[in-house]
């Protein structure tokens, strides 16, 4: 016997008894009144159960709407957080690369001034050759700065991926919010 039919075992029993009376031609006014009363009760039950189920379905729908709205907010916040982290990492990496390049520039400029300039001047006689060399060094260092930035950026990303932060952000911001239904409740 499944749950639905056993839930109505009293009603089923009454119906069975009435059917037997009909079959045996043993119907009395009392049994007919009893049948009408049972029928009346079944109608009331149907009304109550249908209306109550509709109300509770409406409650579930509202809860689902609330969950969907919360998921959407979480998703938006995660996007914002994602962008903020990206910007922070970029700023951190950029600062690091600038520091390295600036240090290298100072070292190279001093080395050029102290060691190279005299040697260059002894070989070539071009006015402002020291300045031209420094300019070339500065441009080379500037190009190198973006390479360093990209290198550090990759390293920071792999560090974040290792820590699982991106995955956590992506998992906690589902694209399609899950719906609550009475069927999915674990037993």
């Amino acid at each position, binding site marked *: 016997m499944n749950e639905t039919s056993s*839930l*109505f075992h009293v009603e089923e029993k009454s119906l069975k008894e009435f059917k037997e009376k009909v079959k045996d031609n043993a119907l009395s006014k009392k049994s007919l009144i009893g049948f009408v009363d049972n029928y009346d009760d079944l109608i*009331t039950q149907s009304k109550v159960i249908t209306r109550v189920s509709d109300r*509770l379905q409406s409650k*579930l729908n509202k809860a689902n709407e609330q969950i969907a709205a919360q998921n959407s907010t979480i998703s938006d916040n995660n996007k914002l957080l994602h962008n903020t982290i990206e910007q922070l990492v970029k700023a951190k990496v950029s600062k690091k690369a600038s520091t390295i390049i600036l240090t290298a520039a100072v070292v190279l400029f001093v080395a050029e001034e102290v060691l190279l300039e005299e040697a260059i001047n002894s070989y070539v006689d071009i006015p402002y050759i020291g300045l031209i060399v420094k300019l070339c060094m500065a441009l080379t260092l500037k190009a190198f700065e973006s390479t360093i930035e990209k290198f550090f950026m990759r390293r920071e990303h792999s560090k974040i991926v290792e820590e699982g932060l991106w995955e956590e952000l992506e998992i906690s911001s589902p694209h399609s919010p899950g719906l609550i239904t*009475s069927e999915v409740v674990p037993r």
Partner: protein
Amino acid sequence: MEKIYIQATEFTPQVHFDPSNGIIELRGNSNPHNSLTFYTKVIHTLEDYVVNDTRGLVANMAFRYFNTSSSKCLYDMFKQLNAMRKKGRQVTINWYYSLDDEDMYEVGKDFSDLMNLNFNFIAMSA
């Protein structure tokens, strides 16, 4: 008559039926795997109380959610309470609902209106 106490779980309500003091209380979620199995003992004890006792009963109901088969079991319980009332015994049904849960209030109203039972509606702060 035996006193019934069932601890609430995530899917079943707390049930407290104290025939000696004429109190029955159900609170929480009612979404059992088999509602009939869960409610059979309560319904039978209530039937026994209606038939064999002469005192009234106070029923406190505080549900957050219940499934359709539980609503059938509640119907059967309220039918018993209605039978008691028709016998002239004092029956008080307190229907508790959360202030932000209008649906549960309406559910109580539906039971009350369709079964001709007088409910006391008591709002609880969320």
